């Protein structure tokens, strides 16, 4: 049974009459969730974890006594529905002000990029989103927390270098990248080419058209190229099909590295036994052993209040991403409360909390999330913060973590980000804020 706080947002529908007087002690999170359509598996896991963590926080008395409330709006992962949801929910819930939006969709994130600036409502795009928005000078309200697409690729290349015995050995390495035929898929091609020039590895880029259920031609080409590693930049059905087709054409599955959207249980399970040995990156290990997850289990899941329909998904990659996202959001609110007072805060105030977020291992240990969340330090200049990933391998039943945190070369990539954000600023007539670069 799902226990959701669902309310008709009549206030939003009929008029946007914003009451400025906040309700007693409630902070609101609008959820642009997606539980149907091709990406439903990701949506139910992520929002399940997010909601369960918020329930857990409320059980412990909320954030300094401020209770968290939320309501959902189904987007089906479609941009225009996400926009409608954004507009419907941004005004808060019964007087409780909205803290931040977390759409977990590149399309929706882009469509609300400009709106979030105008509405002064933080837009959190954990592990995804526009790479350029790492630059907080141009995008004060956007936070691609933990990992942007460039860092992701750089960390993978660094891992491959580690396996090859150092970056100087990369010149003997061949890497093929299989990417989804969409803006998301093509986003990192430029960075890969740059890194290939920088380190001298041989690179082959192969596109798989959406949705990706035919990949023979690509894998035959990969087989001829004989790469040491294949980076899989997949999406939905493309992932299991890649694994299966690799097997059918004799490419070893443990030489494929899945990216951040090719790393969930839902991406490998459909491939069955074939997927055994498949490697992928993650910003947060799957598993239930972390104290924070045990806490959620005790207070929410075992009490029958979990948002998950299928309890066996507790502790999976998407669920834990939702939990991590919950932790980061709540920590931002907590931090902002230290500055603005223990009361419900406006989006503008919560934004300050995000920008000054500084989670070290000590704080992570207190949260019971050491090893689940990477140390994160944000600033006006840097809205990403971490840029590290761990590698995990599928053993047929579950993901096993096989590496420590591997850091991306963020300094190397920063000029590219600055260029993109400058272009955005120029096209949109934004004057960048003045931050002292680190």
């Amino acid at each position, binding site marked *: 049974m799902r226990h959701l706080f669902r309310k008709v947002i009549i206030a939003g529908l009929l008029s946007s009459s914003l009451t400025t007087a906040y309700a007693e002690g409630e902070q609101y999170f609008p959820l642009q969730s997606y*539980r*149907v*359509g*091709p990406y*439903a*598996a990701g949506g*139910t896991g992520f929002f399940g974890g997010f909601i369960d963590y918020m329930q857990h926080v409320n059980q412990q008395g909320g954030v300094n006594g401020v209770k968290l409330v939320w309501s959902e709006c189904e987007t089906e992962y479609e941009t225009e529905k996400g926009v409608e949801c954004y507009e419907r929910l941004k005004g808060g819930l019964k007087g409780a002000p909205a803290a931040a939006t977390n759409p977990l969709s590149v399309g929706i994130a882009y469509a609300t990029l400009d709106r979030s600036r105008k509405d002064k409502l933080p837009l959190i795009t954990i592990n995804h989103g526009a790479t350029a928005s790492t630059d907080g000078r141009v995008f004060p309200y956007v936070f691609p927390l933990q990992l942007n697409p460039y860092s992701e690729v750089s960390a993978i290349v660094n891992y491959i270098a580690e396996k090859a015995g150092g970056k100087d050995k990369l010149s003997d390495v061949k890497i093929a990248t299989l990417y989804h*035929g969409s803006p998301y898929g093509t986003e990192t091609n430029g960075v890969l080419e740059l890194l290939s020039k920088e380190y001298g590895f041989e690179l082959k880029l*192969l*596109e*798989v*058209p*959406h*949705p990706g*259920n*035919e990949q*023979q*031609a*690509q894998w*035959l*080409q990969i*087989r*001829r190229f004989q790469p040491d590693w294949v980076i899989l930049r997949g999406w*939905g*059905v493309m992932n*299991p*099909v890649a694994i*299966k087709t690799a*097997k*059918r*054409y*004799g490419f070893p599955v443990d030489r494929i590295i899945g990216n951040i959207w090719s790393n969930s249980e*839902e991406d490998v*399970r*459909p*491939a*069955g*036994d*074939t997927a055994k040995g498949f490697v992928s990156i993650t910003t947060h290990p799957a598993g239930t052993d972390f104290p924070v997850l045990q806490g959620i289990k005790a207070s929410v899941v075992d009490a029958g209040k979990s948002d998950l*329909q*299928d309890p066996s998904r507790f502790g999976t990659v998407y669920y834990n991403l939702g939990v991590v996202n919950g932790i980061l959001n709540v920590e931002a609110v907590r931090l902002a409360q230290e500055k603005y007072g223990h009361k419900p805060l406006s989006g503008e105030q919560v934004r300050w909390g995000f920008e000054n977020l500084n989670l070290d291992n000590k704080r992570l240990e207190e949260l019971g999330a050491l090893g689940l969340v990477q140390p994160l330090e944000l600033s006006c200049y840097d809205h990403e913060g971490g840029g590290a990933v761990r590698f995990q391998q599928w053993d047929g039943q579950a993901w096993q973590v096989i590496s420590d945190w591997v850091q991306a070369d963020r300094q190397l990539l920063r000029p590219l980000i600055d260029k993109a954000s400058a272009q955005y600023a120029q096209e949109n007539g934004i004057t960048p804020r003045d931050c002292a670069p680190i």
Partner: protein
Amino acid sequence: MEFFLEVLIGGLLAGVMYSLVAIGFVLIYKASGVFNFAQGAMVLFAALTYVSLIDQGLPPWLSLVVTAALMVLLAVAVEAAVLRPLVNRPPIVLFMATLGLAYVIEGAAQALWGTQVHGLELGISDAPMFLGGLLISSFDLVAAGIAGLLVIVLSLFFSYTQTGLALRAVADDPLAAQSVGIRIRRIWVIVWSAAGLVALVAGLLWGARLGVQFSLSLVVLKALPVLIIGGFTSITGAIVGGLLIGAGEKLAEVYLGQLIGNGIENWFPYVLALLFLLVRPAGLFGQRTIERV
């Protein structure tokens, strides 16, 4: 040269999988003149039902029987709720109705069984195979064999049974067939059931290739150009069309893709079909004379 042959053979085997979906179209088009866009949704529905029943703990044979029975039930429902009320309406209206039908079936399948993705193991080997130095996917080979078998069974059915004869009569001239006492509604139910069973076979094979999930219904988009090339009324045409499209798109992806950029498999079949149409409007094996102005 070796590589060329590998791509070619891989493409031909993929083409057989396209034909499998296209055959469902041909059956229905032949008997009722309906271009059934919901065929892809039926593939999804069949595969999802089968997998979900297995997940519920049913043995495979029973799941198969239950799913097959559901497909027949679906055929009866379609005849009663869509075909009968729309009798004598132009084909384009029937086509649009099947678009609606596709929505209904997809929505119902997911409302019934949920949106989780499932793996499906049929016990067919995935290991690569070498034939005379050429790499061939054993899975695709077996799948092609099953598709071939299905075609033979269907051909026998339509050639040598009373129902098959009636069906051909209806396809030839519905009015004349009715006047000699063939009950056309029964024929509709039979062909839609047959198409449902073809969808089941296609669903299982495609499901084993992709995993069972929403995008199974998108295979319909691959079947369309196959039909254009093969003609709407010929099972042989569907097979040949499938082979042509499969081989064509893979070769194009590898060789043309190097020239103009890769990832062209989505549109190439359509452009191929379009060129084909301009040269040979009725398709390779189509019976219907094309309307010309």
